[in-house]
């Protein structure tokens, strides 16, 4: 603003103060910090990472390498192993966890149960722990020689299990720790979904003489479908990014049996400082998450 323009306005007396910030321009001010941060710390890195995935280190700098990283990736046995481990967890652990969550939610929603909020708090408790903390607790409870779990199992005649040093059991241990951490979280989401199912549906079924089990399969499960989809998408994205638990619990071992995609990305990026290759891994992860999310959305949309 120039002095000459401001003068006459002032002489008009303060009746109507000119505002520089108006409802028209203020939204830009409100989004400015978010957009700035977003451009610097998300958009730029996402693009830069894509470019890096086509480069490799030569001397002190990076040079264009075409598809070299991606070709190497598709011939990398360890990458396939990480991919396989991650998908195995996805296919086994996620259904078990969602099944448990639904069962507990249905039980808690039953009119027979009192002290509902006590149960809800208790079941939700694991969801407040840091993944690092919960992994450490499980690491200690699952110790092969002195761990509590093996000690308790010895009472029912089970020989000590090598939870963290046997390739098969290490996967089981990882899944147990994840299930402990996330079941209550999903349970609360299901519980909210259950409370939204109209009671009249059950009353009608009751009058038609449908058993409780029938009601569960023909009313509860179909009515919860959107919640299933939501929790499934959340768990899928979470599992594909699994890092903290295997890093603490097993460091990807033994013999890479618990190596996950993100752990492999971390190792390549920050242990071997192979930024190009790590970026290629990251982009394969983006692609997988993109395709899976798209498929799940499409599956959900078609059914409507």
């Amino acid at each position, binding site marked *: 603003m120039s002095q000459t323009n401001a003068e006459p306005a002032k002489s008009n007396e303060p009746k109507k103060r000119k505002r520089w910030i108006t409802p028209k321009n203020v939204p830009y001010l409100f989004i400015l910090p978010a957009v700035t941060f977003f451009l610097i710390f998300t958009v730029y890195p996402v693009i830069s990472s894509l470019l890096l995935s086509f480069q490799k280190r030569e001397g002190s700098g990076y040079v264009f390498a075409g598809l070299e990283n991606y070709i190497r990736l598709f011939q990398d046995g360890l990458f396939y192993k990480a991919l396989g481990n991650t998908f195995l967890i996805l296919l086994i652990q996620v259904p078990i966890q969602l099944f448990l969550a639904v069962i507990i939610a249905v039980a808690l929603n039953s009119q027979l149960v009192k002290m509902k909020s006590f149960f809800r708090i208790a*079941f939700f408790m694991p*969801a407040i722990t840091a993944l690092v903390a919960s992994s450490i607790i499980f690491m200690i409870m699952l110790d092969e020689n002195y*761990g509590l779990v093996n000690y308790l199992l010895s009472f029912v005649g089970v020989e000590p299990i090598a939870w963290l040093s046997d390739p098969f059991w290490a996967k089981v241990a990882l899944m147990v720790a994840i299930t*402990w951490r996330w079941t209550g979280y999903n349970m*609360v989401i299901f519980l909210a979904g259950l409370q939204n199912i109209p009671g009249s549906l059950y009353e009608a079924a009751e009058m038609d003489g449908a058993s409780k089990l029938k009601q569960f399969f023909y009313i509860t499960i179909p009515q919860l479908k959107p919640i299933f989809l939501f929790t499934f998408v959340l768990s899928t994205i979470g599992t594909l990014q699994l890092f903290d638990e295997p890093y603490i619990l097993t460091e990807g071992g033994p013999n890479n049996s618990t190596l996950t995609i993100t752990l492999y990305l971390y190792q390549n990026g920050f242990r071997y400082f192979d930024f190009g290759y790590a970026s290629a891994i990251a982009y394969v*992860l*983006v692609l997988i998450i993109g395709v899976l999310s798209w498929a799940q959305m499409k599956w959900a949309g078609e059914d409507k």
Partner: protein
Amino acid sequence: MKNVSPLKKTLLYFFLFVGVIVSVFPFYWMFVGATNPSGEIFKVPPNFFPGTHGWENFKNLNENVGIIRVLGNSLLITLTFTALAAIICTAAGYAFAKFQFKGRNQIFFMLLVAIMIPYHVTLIPLFEIFSNVGWLNTFQAVILPQAAYPFAIFLMRQNMQAIPDSLLEAARVDGAGEFHIFFRIVLPVMRPALAAVGIFLFMFQWNNFIWPLVVLQSQDMYTLPVALSSLVGMSRIDYGQVMMGTTLSTLPIMIFFLLLQKQFISGILGGSVKE
């Protein structure tokens, strides 16, 4: 209600109580470990009761990884991040919910896409950015990258839509400035949503692991999760210390959770469950 067989009821309660024990026992075990010397939980049979060695473990832990400093780091980083991210995300959410402006839908769509993109894709370029400006091993490197948290912006936008336009218009007619409206009218009305989003952001940063692990390089800068992971990585692990560290990271959150369960649950679930 029909009369239900007592057996059915007993079974139901049995099932739930087993579940509760499985959910809560590890916390108890952590506490037992934290208050006993390292060997006690590893004896056969193990010691099942809290001991009196807690202070000793704390002192050793402080000598070992400087846990007081680490706690301070975590607290400083988390609180600064929460305040910064809450204000940035709330302002943006307000603009997206209550204003018409050019590019609004396009920018908002980009944010939605960003929610789906795994954070790990950005790790390497972020590392390079902070390395180039000489900010590796600093608190700002941990705080800044996620301050415009797309999901938090999304949540605030959803909540802001409930504010009636007439309320804002009335304030404008009365001559209130836009910032006055935001700080004095919108924020107070949004207090419950702010609490939930604040808890969400706080929990994210308190538990944040992979990025601080990458960017923090010396022990005096570590956050709790990074310090804990360094303890576990040592060749001789002192389990009393480890459990004390785990307790220190969990206990404050647990107390807050028990005090503010409802806000906590909806906060951690990111508002997907309405109370």
